[in-house]
């Protein structure tokens, strides 16, 4: 039996990135509205209703789908913006919405039963019973898996569930279970779950001390660089800290996830779709990554070994990892 090809789900932070991704061979793009309803609520990114309508036209004309991420957790007493986002996605004809909050899933399933629902990684559904909860209560058709499972565990999980799974294969990686991390809000007051931004630029500053450059998030030093070191962005969990008497990147090095070489294993594990992270990235980045993965997916589908990818220069810190998908990472 030939398995259908893995579906390639690609980031569209802007209308230009959407067009680049579609042109480069994306099967789907995912995007968000320009507010706190999505988990990449950064300045200069995202879509208004008109841009979404145009993006839908562009993608649909080229046989690509558009998924709308509404994947933060609505504020108590202020569900309006989240409900409006779901209503707009439905009215404009989005192919699916990607949701995390149980109240919002309930609203969507009730108000827009025909609007396809995906479960966001931000819900961190990591086991068959959690997935069953979302499928049975809200008719979720696909689950984006949190980055806590190895490929072997994903294979075992897929045997126990009747719903599509999507996994992250490239880009920035959360090392904590997604949607269950308050590190950023502890340091900055800005919460990925509530405000849609982790380690926000508004709270980043650099201090040049002559012999070293210090990067800070809020009041906390996240890293310090010697003059010969490249200074990275102070994402909290990729910082250098002192624990047990030594300095280290305790949570994770500044690195990007890259599973280009593991597509056959993911396919064998029963995964339906591959997700590329990076809605904050420009269209050149998106085009390069999507093209490389398009080739790899097509090769894997034809039974060939995917060609090596030359994406190292597009990775954070120029480092790559297969992350949690291999057990040794833990």
């Amino acid at each position, binding site marked *: 039996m030939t398995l259908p090809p893995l579906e390639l789900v690609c980031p569209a932070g802007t209308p230009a990135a959407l067009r680049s991704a579609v042109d480069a061979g994306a099967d789907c793009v995912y995007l968000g509205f320009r507010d706190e309803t999505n988990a990449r609520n950064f300045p200069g990114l995202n879509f208004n209703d008109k841009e979404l309508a145009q993006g839908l036209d562009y993608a649909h004309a080229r046989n690509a789908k558009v998924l709308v991420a509404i994947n933060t957790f609505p504020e108590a007493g202020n569900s309006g913006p989240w409900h409006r986002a779901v209503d707009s996605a439905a009215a404009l004809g989005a192919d699916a919405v990607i949701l995390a909050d149980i109240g919002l899933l309930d609203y969507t399933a009730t108000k827009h039963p025909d609007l396809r629902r995906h479960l966001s990684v931000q819900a961190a559904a990591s086991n068959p019973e959690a997935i069953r909860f979302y499928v049975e209560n809200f008719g979720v058709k696909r689950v984006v898996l949190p980055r806590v499972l190895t490929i072997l565990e994903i294979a075992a999980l897929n045997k126990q569930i009747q719903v599509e799974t999507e996994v992250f294969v490239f880009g920035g990686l959360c090392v904590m279970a997604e949607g269950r991390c308050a590190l950023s809000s502890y*340091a900055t007051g800005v919460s990925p779950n509530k405000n849609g931004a982790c380690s926000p630029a508004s709270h980043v500053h650099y201090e040049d001390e002559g012999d070293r450059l210090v990067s800070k998030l809020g009041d906390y030093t996240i890293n310090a660089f010697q003059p010969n070191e490249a200074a990275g962005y102070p994402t909290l969990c990729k910082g250098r800290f002192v624990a047990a008497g030594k300095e280290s990147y305790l949570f994770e090095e500044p690195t990007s996830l890259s599973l280009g070489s593991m597509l056959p294993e993911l396919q064998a594990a029963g995964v339906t779709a591959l997700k590329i992270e990076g809605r904050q990235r420009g269209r050149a980045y998106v085009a390069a990554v999507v093209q490389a993965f398009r080739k790899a997916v097509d090769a894997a589908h034809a039974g060939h070994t995917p060609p090596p990818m030359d994406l190292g220069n597009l990775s954070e810190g120029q480092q790559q990892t297969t992350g949690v998908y291999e057990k040794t990472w833990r």
Partner: protein
Amino acid sequence: MTKAKLTLGPVLFNWPVEKWRDFYFRMADEAPVDCVNLGEVVCSKRLPFFEPVIADVIERLQGAGKEVVLSTLALIMSKREMDIVRDITAMDDLRVEANDVSTATLLAGKPHSIGPFINVYNEGTLAFFAKNGATRVCLPVELSASTLSVLAKDAGPELEVLAFGRLPLAVSARCYHARAHDLSKDNCQFVCAEDPDGMELETLDGDAFLAVNGTQTLSYTCNNLIEELAQMRKMGINHFRLSPQDIDMVGVARAFRDVLDRNLSAVEGADVLEQLSGGLEFSNGYYYDLEGGRMVAAE
């Protein structure tokens, strides 16, 4: 006014079994808490350690008139972990607290608690869990006073708020305790047991920042809402959770009880906690919709 209740949360850290047992025995005998949550929340590898004594601990607590609630794992990744939780939820004689949505599914239709590791940010989600059978919900760490007051307004389930202890900020598949000691998770040698309050993590500039507890990351600061109790009670929140640290938790519970019963003023209660803190620094920033690590002087 409804009498306010205190819950002792589950010990989040890897304490030696004798210390763990004696801690609960003392809490049973001396601490003015109404409910005691216990059970492993962080790492399933630790479970076998206290299994031999858990029945004795439950008996002692119930004998002292405490309601015992079984807490469950926050992150469930394997069949083995799923089976552990399935067994716990199958018990009919004790209330169970779900810390993962999976566990709430298994508890559907019978009265249960939702723990602080499940994302309840708004009334829609709260209503859904109420419909599912939740009768008590301990809210997540990062909710502000204004959110708490909205949730308290139409709450079906009894709401509980974390009022003392290091804040559980994140959970991961990766064990940072093992990683800090150059060990693998599978062969971790249980190094997390070296740090009964968590392993302190500092910035490169020597500022205390976080505390690592195996796969869990907590705040360095100790959440302390003793001066906000009266305000929360006005909102209709009457249940407060004290999360165990390796300090005199009987004294901590007495301070909270005395403030709730107006035998001590909030300021006096805060002074008592300061003396008991053993060097822990306090924070209450989330309550004021600020950085969680901040300490704001109460009005």
